[in-house]
């Protein structure tokens, strides 16, 4: 169990050289014998790449699994929207890749704020993921002869990204979903769709189940288990406008946090450089255009500020390919945080196109070189989507893009076993914090989700079950009743306010505070201001929220209100974390801390740690615990993509 009594956190990383840690650990962990596995019940929240693969793999081992999802089917989890690809260190192209190089690129890409041992393990199992998915029938792109194809992604100089056209997330998710459906058919997994997790059941300090609300009937259910696995995704929707799906929320993570799970590095949010710009106040979400487009698309703005000519009328000499200019060795394939800041810098300096908050992503040269058909084969669905949304044809005119909130590297703190500070609560995928540091490289979210679910949790959960005393807990145990009443009470509170403002309007306002003060650039005064504004808005929320309908039937505006209520609390923690971290790293850019060339300036002396926050009460200050980060195998250095 993580020991936080002295203010530092024990990550339980095994001793020994980094390349031997996982093997050694797998040997040292206790096992549950095959005949006993069927005596253990595990609940898994979320059915994305991490949750779906975890539920299926644990059921294959013989555990009894209950799988919960908020959508009407596990196949709809937001992993499905990942477009570009998944990394692995296969080195099939023979271009110099290796586990070490993937490890190194990921640590560097994360701006030296991730845990080395976890990242090495991630790189190690990456190859097994490709094998497993190919065997499941995931239709990865292949060469004519039948071997697997690769393409390039940001932050790497090798081609290590496997892909299924522009729908890699969809295909990997369907692979995990199908594995899950197979276990449902066998009876090893019980499926609970349209359920929202509203509390964690903790008995004698150990996580023993969850409280969910059936979104169709409004009924609350308690599900007691021997271990709880949460894979409920990231919190990007705290910004309201993001590339996340509409139901993505922080509620499950936040309720775990309130029950004792520390929340790590919430300020590490990824702003993705290539998204379709906002077009109006009614906008409900932003749409990503895959990073893979930067393989062939060239990013530029006019050299003259406020140039209003149509892009085709701007001659070559008057175009500023600013990524190629500033970062000649990585060019258009610099990591996301770098590309986003560079776009913001150009737009803030008056060189933006369209309404001013956009840059061009231009395919003219690749179409000239390879022809439209080749481009269509690689990116057809993305171009189609772009045209649907903007009514412009990207084969003819350059795309207009602007950065948008996309992924959250922070999350529930977990140790090397993916166990949170509440024993028995394991957190996987985007919901945890451990592998991406302060910035995630492209094509590594899918890798991490599946690594956690297919190849880490099936081992580490056994150790927990084999070494923890797990007395029988019935549904009428006081801790179960208390959690149930707590969840029910909060929903009733929302219904009782009877104010005048909708949950959506509160959410939008919270989002604009977050984006204005805690978006791509942050400073101390702005962050302090934001905390005050969030506190005020939260007070207004609890006085003036309007929810119509009742709690005993399907009620989407009630569901939304509950999620916004949690974002109101969580948003303050995110900003608090951003204010405390007096350095710039990855997606966290503090204006006070930058180099003369406007690059992020880290402070390894004082901030080379994971900031994990302990919940003390809604209007109380959270307590900071530190996990010091050690870099033994990748030397701490200033990131350079020049």
């Amino acid at each position, binding site marked *: 169990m993580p020991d936080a009594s002295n203010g530092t956190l024990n990550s339980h990383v095994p001793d020994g050289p980094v390349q031997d840690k996982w093997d050694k650990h797998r040997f040292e962990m206790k096992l549950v014998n095959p005949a006993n596995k069927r005596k253990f019940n595990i609940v898994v929240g979320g059915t994305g790449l991490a949750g779906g693969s975890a539920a299926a793999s644990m059921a294959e081992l013989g555990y009894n699994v209950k799988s919960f999802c908020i959508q009407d089917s596990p196949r709809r989890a937001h992993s499905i*929207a990942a477009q570009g690809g998944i990394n692995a260190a296969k080195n099939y192209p023979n271009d110099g890749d290796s586990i070490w190089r993937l490890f190194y690129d990921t640590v560097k890409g994360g701006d030296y704020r991730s845990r080395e041992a976890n990242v090495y393990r991630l790189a190690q199992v990456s190859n097994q993921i490709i094998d497993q998915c190919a065997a499941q029938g995931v239709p990865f792109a292949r060469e004519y002869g039948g071997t697997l194809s690769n393409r390039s992604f940001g932050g790497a100089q090798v081609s290590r990204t496997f892909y299924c056209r522009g729908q890699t997330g969809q295909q990997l998710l369907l692979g995990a979903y199908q594995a899950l459906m197979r276990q449902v*058919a066998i009876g090893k997994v019980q499926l609970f769709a349209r359920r929202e997790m509203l509390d964690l059941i903790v008995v004698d300090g150990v996580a023993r189940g969850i409280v969910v609300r059936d979104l169709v009937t409004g009924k609350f259910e308690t599900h007691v288990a021997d271990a709880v696995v949460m894979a409920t995704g990231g919190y990007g929707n705290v910004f309201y406008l993001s590339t996340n799906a509409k139901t993505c929320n922080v509620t499950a993570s936040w309720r775990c946090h309130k029950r004792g799970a520390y929340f790590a590095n919430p300020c590490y949010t990824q702003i993705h450089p290539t998204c379709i710009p906002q077009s109006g106040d009614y906008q409900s979400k932003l749409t990503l255009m895959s990073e893979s487009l930067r393989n062939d698309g060239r990013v530029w703005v006019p050299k003259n500020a406020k140039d209003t000519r149509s892009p085709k009328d701007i001659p070559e000499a008057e175009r500023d390919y600013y990524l190629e200019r500033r970062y000649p060795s990585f060019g258009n394939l610099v990591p996301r945080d770098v590309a986003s800041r560079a776009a913001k810098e150009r737009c803030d300096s008056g060189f933006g196109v369209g309404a001013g908050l956009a840059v061009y992503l231009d395919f003219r040269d690749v179409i000239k070189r390879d022809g439209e058909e080749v481009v269509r084969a690689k990116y057809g669905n993305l171009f189609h989507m772009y045209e649907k949304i903007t009514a412009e044809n990207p084969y003819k005119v350059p795309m207009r893009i602007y950065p948008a909130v996309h992924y959250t590297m922070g999350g529930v703190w977990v140790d090397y076993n993916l166990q949170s500070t509440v024993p028995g609560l394991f957190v996987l995928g985007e919901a945890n914090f451990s592998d991406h540091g302060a910035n995630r490289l492209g094509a590594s979210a899918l890798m991490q989700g599946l690594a956690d679910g297919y190849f880490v949790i099936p081992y580490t959960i056994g150790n927990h079950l084999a070494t923890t005393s797990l007395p029988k807990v019935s549904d009428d145990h006081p801790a179960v009743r208390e959690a149930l009443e707590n969840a029910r009470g909060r929903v009733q509170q929302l219904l009782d306010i009877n104010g005048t403002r909708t949950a959506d309007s509160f959410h939008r306002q919270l989002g604009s505070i977050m984006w204005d003060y805690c978006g791509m650039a942050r400073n101390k005064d702005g962050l302090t201001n934001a905390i005050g504004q969030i506190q005020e808005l939260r007070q207004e929320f609890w006085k003036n929220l309007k929810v119509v309908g009742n709690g005993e039937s399907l009620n989407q505006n009630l569901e939304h209100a509950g999620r916004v209520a949690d974002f109101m609390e969580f948003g303050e923690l995110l900003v608090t974390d951003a204010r405390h971290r007096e350095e710039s790293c990855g997606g966290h850019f503090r204006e006070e801390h930058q180099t003369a060339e406007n690059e992020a300036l880290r402070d390894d002396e004082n901030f080379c740690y994971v900031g994990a926050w302990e919940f003390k009460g809604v209007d109380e200050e959270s307590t900071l615990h530190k996990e010091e980060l050690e870099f033994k195998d990748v030397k701490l250095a200033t990131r350079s993509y020049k």
Partner: protein
Amino acid sequence: MSDTLNLTLRVWRQANRDDRGAFHAYRLEGVSTHMSFLEMLDVLNEQLISQGEEPVAFDHDCREGICGACGVMINGQAHGPDHETTTCQLHMRRFRDGDTITIEPWRATSFPVVKDLMVDRSSLDRIIQAGGFVSVNTGNAPDGNAVLVPGADQNKAMDAAACIGCGACVASCQNASAMLFTAAKVTHLAELAQGRAERSQRVLSMVAQMDEESFGGCTNTYECEAACPAGIKVTAITKLNREYLRALVTSDV
């Protein structure tokens, strides 16, 4: 062309599965042509909540056309008038000022209405449970390049695997058949070497489950292909039929 529209919406309202349900008409003014169809419904819902009325329930999630959650009948067409486009990707520039738009849920016995425009599509999950997978436990896989899949086969598999499971094929079919959905999965896995070991069992079980769920039979009207936002072609159904016959003739299952 004006940038805003004034619309009349005829929306199906049904409190729950057992309610009879009826159309309700709503006026919506100043709808921007740049909005997506679902954003237009968001605006309607904000208006309804402000008036103290229950918002219209509809399924939606990614709003990028890939999760398959959204889907309603718009003026009698599944996902509306645009080719290969989900409801969330349909934009209001497709409509004219003064239009009346009729919005209904998918209608099929196998998709009972949950509320308003939301239906229960768990029958599609059960078709996948019947065999829409490759039986390979985690850890059992050979190297990804050990089993070669020629690019052409992979392409055919990918075309079929693109199905988003929205149910538009069922909703647009006069028989409420799930043939295109089932065929897409059968084709995806039958085209790949990895899926061939179980091909007979798979097609027989999935078709049996389809019947079990009360989906209708296919009478080749091709409405499913016309409605499919993921571009799945009816040639997948041909493939399913061949797979089915092959299984009947050659297998002992």
